């Protein structure tokens, strides 16, 4: 099954990305396919400059880990530009693209779940 995941909140501030990370990890272990779309403040999760304390989880690195496991992570270009998540600031796991990709995800996934 293909699961679409929509993330609308930024890192650390809200639990959304943490919940999504745990959900996606579980889904991958169960053999499901996952694709992520980052919208609204969700684009901040891909900021390449985040540098949390060493004993704290590094959310952009968690995204990189998901990417190595085959999860595509699309960053909304409009939401990203407005907030400063652009080519110069996005982490390697984030793929900047348009809102059409969110509709594509609605079409191609079996379920869309929002965090």
């Amino acid at each position, binding site marked *: *099954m293909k*699961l679409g995941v929509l993330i*609308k909140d930024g890192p650390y501030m809200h*639990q*959304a990305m943490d*919940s999504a990370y*745990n*959900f996606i*990890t*579980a*889904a991958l*272990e*169960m053999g*499901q396919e996952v694709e992520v779309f980052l919208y609204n403040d969700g684009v901040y999760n891909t900021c390449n400059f985040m540098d949390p304390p060493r004993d704290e989880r590094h959310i952009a690195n968690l995204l990189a880990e998901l990417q190595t496991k085959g999860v595509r992570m699309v960053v909304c270009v409009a939401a990203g530009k407005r907030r400063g998540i652009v080519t110069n600031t996005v982490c390697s796991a984030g793929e900047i693209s348009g809102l059409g990709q969110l509709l594509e995800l609605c079409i191609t996934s*079996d*379920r*869309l*779940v*929002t*965090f």
Partner: protein
Amino acid sequence: MLHIIKKSPYESTALSDFLKYLKENDIVLLTEDAVYAAKKGGKFEENIKGILKSNAVFCLMADTKARGISDAEIIENIKLIDYKGFVDKVIEQNPITWA
């Protein structure tokens, strides 16, 4: 339909908002700060018991443990699940998130 709730019922109206759209066979999943609704002795115990009469209510264990809500403190008939159980529920029914 799978109703995913994530805000505390004490600060947000999400718990009462989604109720208006609850139908038989729907599943309710309490996650993040919404797990406080699952705690015995709180202000929303009767609301949750009312939902349990007609619908299955699940609660994410990682979120109750984080917040120090022991299994014994959780209202009877609420089922605790892990993230794999969360994935199962999403596969079972179409999810809608009430934030």
